[in-house]
């Protein structure tokens, strides 16, 4: 087989390699995660690592590994792992978190203001090693003297992987995970443990860590009365049918005003028509909302 030289994908160096664009579109179609043209360089590097491993010479040949060779399923997972590697850290997606605090929280509070129980329930579905639920907990604690005064906040944090959950419960993190921490949060919510940082117990008290398989229908049914669900870079590993089932569960788990946040550049296109896409500053979210309910 002849092999075309691997071309660079950066905008400055030339138009995107058509084979890289095919890989981008495949990943979007299968996993729902999109790399815009200015992020193709990143995708190119990640494909490059896999290509080195497989000793493939060209993107075209690698595309075949992802589509027609017997290893395609395993290779797709390997590439997705490369794509999401290092994604987990505290305060990972600031525009998303700012939108939660400035825009979503007031809406949720307004929707629940007349209920006898002032309780906010947030679920970090696929919480990995815990950075996301701890971030959410710290943010909500900052709101405890403001918007959330006299509110109870409950954060459910679930993951399939028991080892990740153990790490989460230990709450000790290195430089990489804590790289986005501002001095304010670092000092207020962490204590040094050797060269690492440990989350202070006070910031964990409202988090409930547990093992959960999102494909476990019977257990998913019991996740009730949620205001916000975060499920970032988790559904990308599911096939379409499983994705649809999980999303249907999320839909049922959320209260009528509820919101679903996915990872950056992650989409539900072709997966669910029930949720409505909304735009927030610097990002998107999915809202349950009245229209979707009426259509059902």
């Amino acid at each position: 087989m002849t092999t075309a030289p691997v071309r660079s994908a950066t905008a400055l160096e030339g138009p995107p390699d058509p084979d890289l664009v095919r890989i981008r579109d495949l990943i979007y179609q299968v996993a729902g995660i999109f790399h815009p043209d200015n992020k193709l360089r990143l995708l190119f590097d990640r494909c490059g690592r896999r290509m080195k491993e497989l000793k493939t010479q060209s993107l075209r040949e690698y595309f075949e590994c992802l589509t027609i060779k017997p290893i395609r399923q395993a290779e797709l997972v390997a590439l997705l792992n490369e794509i999401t590697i290092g994604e987990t850290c505290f305060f990972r997606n600031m525009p998303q978190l700012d939108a939660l605090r400035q825009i979503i929280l007031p809406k949720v509070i307004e929707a629940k203001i007349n209920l006898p129980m002032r309780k906010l329930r947030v679920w970090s579905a696929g919480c990995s090693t815990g950075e996301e639920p701890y971030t959410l907990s710290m943010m909500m604690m900052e709101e405890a003297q403001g918007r959330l005064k006299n509110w109870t906040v409950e954060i459910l944090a679930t993951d399939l992987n028991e080892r990740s959950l153990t790490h989460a419960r230990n709450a000790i993190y290195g430089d990489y995970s804590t790289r986005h921490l501002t001095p304010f949060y670092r000092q207020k919510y962490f204590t040094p443990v050797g060269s690492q940082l440990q989350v202070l117990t006070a910031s964990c008290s409202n988090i409930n860590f547990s093992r959960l398989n999102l494909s476990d229908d019977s257990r998913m049914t019991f996740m009730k009365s949620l205001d916000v669900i975060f499920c970032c870079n988790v559904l990308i590993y599911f096939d379409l049918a499983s994705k649809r089932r999980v999303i249907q569960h999320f839909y049922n788990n959320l209260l009528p005003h509820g919101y679903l946040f996915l990872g950056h550049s992650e989409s539900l296109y072709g997966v669910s028509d029930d949720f409505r896409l909304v735009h927030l500053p610097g990002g998107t979210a999915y809202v349950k909302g009245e229209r979707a309910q009426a259509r059902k």
Partner: protein
Amino acid sequence: MNTAATKATLLQRLEGLQHIPTIPAVLGPLLRYLQQPTEQLDVQKVTEMIGQDKSLAAQCLQMANSPLFGRWQKIDTLRSAVIGLGFQRVGDIAMSCGVLNIMPRDCGLDPVVFWEHSLGCALVARHFARKISYPDPGKAYLAGLLHDLGIIVNLWVLPKEFIVAFELARKEGIPLREAEQTVLGFTHCDSGLLLANRWDLAPDLKEVVALHHSPQVSKEHTALVTLVELSDLLCRMSGLNYGYVENRQVNLLEQTGFAVLSQQCPGMKDLDWARLTFELDSYLDEVHALVRAIYRI
């Protein structure tokens, strides 16, 4: 000051302004010339027309080398720009530079953010138009570029008052037009229409300038107005905003002209809005880099 009185003041000031914002002299004839059928157009003639304005020519050349306009090989001359990019693109580029050149430079605000937004909106409108098979993506570009003409008017005519409105919008995280209405008693849609009339823009562009925040009032060109309204919203919710974050949630599917645009463009039916939004990311860096480079010329 009530609204009517303020609008009258605005009109008076615009009438009395010594230097009315006007697009560079070469652009009028150029754009008229480019409206002819392509087979009647002459590369040399277009090159000469732009070349009359040295500064504009230099800016056009810089812009022609941006990947945003689809070229990856270096373009050294205006002539190669016209040959390589085609008449339509060169017209778009010349007009884009023309709009930058009418931004007042010493008005107390950095006009670059407004031009960035306009250029971003033009590119997004063109991209969006292609995605939904809107019949005239070139018009969508021009409409996106000119939709905020009123901001330029406000910067020229009432700079101090406009800065107050802008600061209010930035501080509160609210749409600029709401702050303009509060502080000035009118919005950039009102003042933009005055200039659009003075420039004698085409009727569809006038509607875009005047109604891009209220497409429900639009009668003749609702599809184009809505296309620009949605592109404008996408830009304002992304990094192609006016340099500040609007603290709100936007549902594009519930915008008023959405049904009209869907009726006219079948591509709207299955449009992947999430992907369209993600695709905008690729414009961000390029637009920022290009705008800074051109502004220095």
